[in-house]
């Protein structure tokens, strides 16, 4: 059974549906909902799943420092992918498929695990009240007090063949809408998603590694995004940054690479109090500085980021250049440090490198 190839084909199918004309305002040709501008988020409902959209994720990355003084990074992601814009219940009705990725990066190792599940049977899913997102025994659960936002306090666990982690996360800032008040445009022709983040987590917990458990503490960033048309057909991949500045400010920035070599960039500057400033295409300048051979391909693991409007000119270095996620859709995802005009830590995700 080549599930791997099957899912690639399946998601390619999702992508190939892009670029088709709108069958209806707010719906695509196959009945999936598409994001429309000026839609306010509705919490806690929007923390939950949106089965009427093709794809969705709960994406958490953490930059950590261990009691041993070393840097660590980890990722916890739950993806939802829809075959039909319906919820589905039980084994016989499977319009929704769930996929989990867990990564744990040390200076000299990178651990990866992956899980798959059909929706509607309880193996994976997201509940709104109380908030919980899970696949198998990997769980992201709300520990928020009554009245507080469900994502303001979380516990997070995952386990792979040779690693496990167990973290407590507490947000000391608000939820931040990305793009135009949560409507994040992904191409010049208007592909978009709904997108918000919680970048203000303080993290403490334990990593279980082959050499034994390690207490860690640090910062984490949660991205929530859903859409039915994430990329344009000629977009080959993306380079995505989430950066924690030492002064408490945050920067989200990405570049979507096109076949013709052009890059569509987007960024959000987030003040330490959570006030966002979105930047459209071209404001952020991304320049690869050095590549490394990773899993048989050249991947730019060092970057220069410039956001002149904020006087930002920084260079990033990975904790471990071999932070390769050898999953169904392989990609690079790992913790980074940056220096230059500003200093801090963050996470980098790079997809589409052949």
């Amino acid at each position, binding site marked *: *059974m080549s599930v791997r190839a099957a899912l690639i084909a399946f998601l390619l199918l999702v992508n190939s549906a892009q670029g088709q004309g709108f069958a209806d305002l707010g719906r695509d040709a196959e009945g999936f909902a598409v994001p429309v501008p000026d839609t306010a988020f509705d919490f806690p409902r929007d923390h939950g799943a949106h089965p009427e959209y093709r794809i969705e994720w709960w994406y958490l990355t953490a930059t950590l420092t261990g009691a041993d003084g070393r840097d660590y990074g980890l990722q916890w992601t739950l993806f939802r992918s829809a075959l*039909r814009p319906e919820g589905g219940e039980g084994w016989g009705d499977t319009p929704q498929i769930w996929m989990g990725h867990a990564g744990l990066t040390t200076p000299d190792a990178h651990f990866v695990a992956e899980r798959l599940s059909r929706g509607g049977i309880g193996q994976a899913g997201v509940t709104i009240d109380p908030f919980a997102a899970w696949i*198998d025994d990997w769980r992201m659960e709300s520990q928020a007090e009554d009245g507080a936002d469900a994502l303001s306090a979380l516990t997070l666990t995952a386990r792979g063949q040779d690693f496990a982690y167990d973290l407590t996360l507490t947000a000391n800032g608000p939820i931040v809408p990305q793009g135009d008040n949560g409507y994040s445009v992904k191409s010049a022709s208007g592909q978009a998603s709904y997108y918000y983040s919680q970048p203000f987590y303080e993290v403490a917990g334990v990593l279980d590694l082959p050499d034994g458990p390690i207490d860690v503490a640090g910062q984490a960033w949660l991205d929530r995004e859903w859409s039915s048309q994430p990329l344009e057909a000629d977009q080959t991949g993306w380079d995505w940054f989430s950066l924690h500045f030492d002064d408490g400010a945050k920067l989200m920035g990405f570049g979507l690479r096109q076949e013709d070599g052009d890059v569509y960039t987007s960024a959000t500057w987030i003040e330490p109090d959570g006030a966002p400033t979105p930047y459209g295409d071209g404001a952020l300048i991304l320049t690869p500085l050095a590549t490394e051979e990773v899993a048989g391909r050249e991947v730019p693991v060092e970057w220069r980021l410039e956001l002149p409007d904020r006087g930002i000119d920084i260079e990033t270095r990975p904790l471990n250049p071999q932070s390769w996620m050898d999953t169904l859709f392989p990609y690079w995802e790992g913790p980074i440090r940056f220096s230059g005009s500003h200093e801090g830590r963050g996470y980098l995700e790079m997809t589409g490198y052949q």
Partner: protein
Amino acid sequence: MIRAALSALLSHWWRHKVQLAALMIGLALATGLWTGVQAINQEARSSYDAAASVLGQDQLDRLQRADGALIAPEAFVDLRRAGWLVSPVVEGEARIGGVRLRILGIDPLTAPPAAAAVDLTGDGDLAAFIGDDRLVFINPETAGRLPSDPLTVRLSDDLPPGVAIADISTAWSLLDMEGFSHLLLWPEQPYDVPPFEDAAPDLVRIAADGASDVGRLTGSFHLNLTAFGLLSFVVGLFIVHAAVGLAFEQRRPMFRTLRALGLPARHLVALLGGEMLILAVIGGALGIVVGYFVAATLLPDVAATLRGLYGAEVSGTLRLDPGWILAGFAIALVGTAVASAQSLWRLARLPVLAPAQPRAWSMATSRSLALQAGLGCALLLVAAILALFGHGLLSGFTILATLLLGAALLLPAVLMALLKLGASFAQRPLAEWLWADTRQQVPGLSLALMALLLALAASIGVGTMVSSFRLTFTDWLDQRLASELYVTASTEEEAERLRSFLAPLADTVLPIRSVEARVAGAPGEIYGIVDHATYRDHWPLLQGQDETWDRIAASDGALINEQLHRRAGLSIGDTVTLPNGWSETVVGVYSDYGNPTGQVIVGLDALVDRYPDLARLRHAVRISPDDAPALADRIRDEFGVTMRVINQDEVKRLSLDVFERTFLVTGALTVLTLGVAAFAILTSLLTLAAMRLPQLAPVWALGLTRRRLAWIELARAVLLALLTWLVAVPLGLLLAWLLLAIVNVEAFGWRLPLFVFPLDWLALALWATLAAALAAAWPAWRLARIPPARLLQVFAHER
């Protein structure tokens, strides 16, 4: 020199074409039968292995319920949420368009990579597989047997025949069940997961097992075939041995000449070894061709047998496999080496100028005869000990092997004793000479006679088993198929209409309702019956009590078939585990020949309580036998072709048909073995004929005509064959008893009474006589026409 020697050696074969033919036929038969049987076995085994490894079940451990019941879907989710990497499998049999399919339901999202079964990489395949399209993967051969049906079928060459792979939910609807047969465990589990028992306390871990259930079930059948193949091979080797011995014996003057001309002994041995190698390769090649045809001819029957008897799907077409071709050559070479080793060894030690006087090549001294007899006794002792204390199928076959071999080794001594006994009654000098000369011949003929003994004993043993079985089976069919008509409707409405239609016409209409379910931890069937004299009076109970039928009628207790009784060790008073926490006390055991699986009979109410949605399509109709055909016609007229009406006779015919096919293969092999044995006698007699001239010439010189001598030779062969037959009868009966009481119980799960068929033995005696007479006819004819000069030469030392 070497070239000249080689051409001299080979020239022998051109001058003795019959000998060459005998050698070739012997080798080809030995290799062919062996290879054919191996090819059949291998074809079947690869089918089983393919079936077993479809989901990597031969490599992956699994979890299943200790009681064999289906696992609730929630248990799978609980385990996953406890961190265990498990993947559900639901397995069962369904009839789709009349074709029995083994349905395997899987979850492609959690299936371990080793459970690679089908390719879902095509556009939208995964969506079609887990979605509403109900995509089902089937092997093309199997798909060809399916009528156009409601399934969305995708062909896959990788799948074994008879297997359909579908998503869990598709399999559930095809099998009409909900739950998992077992959960496959990923080979690598996550870091530090808690014990699985915490999440699923009623599951047990079953270690991966390379052997498939079907393989285990059919193991005995294949062992059976292998035993026959080996028997044929051994018998074939007798022919080769005889032909090689003869060729060496006749060329002794030539060897002496070559050695005298300066050819070193090493070179001579090497040349003859090379000659044997060439002959073995040619004979082996012929044998492989023979084997291919034997296998291709028998395979469809074997496949039908395996399907009918064990539900095992085996591809009916033979593939040329380098494996068994190489094995065929190997066995031909080994056989030739074994058959010619003795001759080559003697040759190597032959003094250069040893007199070229022929000695019977296998003239055994009395010491070696005693040694042989001692060995035979020891083997028989081993067989007896095993019969008393051994158990299991392997022990059964070991008993068979030691018994046959021991008896064969004892044969010359027994024949000698019998001939001595005969000689004590001889009065006239000619008769005395005849007895004495026959004893003189026994060592030379002993190998051929052993072959005859084995063939005769196998024929009696297998024949007795098959005939006993047939008798029991026919009897049992009469009891079991007590109803006159069996009618199956295609829909519930039609069935309803049928019942009201039959109400005024038939004496009784008995519902037949059954469900395929796990019984005592293995796949089986549960039948529900109503209380009726048909069952009370006719059902073939092996164990029962007075109140057996009352308890079934009261839905209190269950009847089990003999297979379940033996396999699960259940007897009256024990509890049989049925699905979903249901269990019943065993109140009786019935014989159920021809059924590979366990079967349970309960009261109809008990069954319907548990399975309220069971189809009510099948009916048994009681009516006076004379009126049955007319009623069958009326039903057909009334309901048309959708209503399946079978009368008792047809079912019996079908059942007997399956039965006949089952034993066709063994029957064919028995006949072949007997033919091979006759051929062995022929070659041995030919070998002896030339060497016996020194013994015959004086008798001829004393006045006995060549014609008379020839008749005596013929009579002698027949006498020896009959004496061998005399030994073969008790041996064959012993064999039959072993087959019925030990091998059958282990192999099929039923024990049968032994019936004796003396007429068959007499017929066999005739066949043995005929075989021996035919084998001796040609040598005798040659003796009758031998030029007197050659007989005279015996006295002239100029042979």
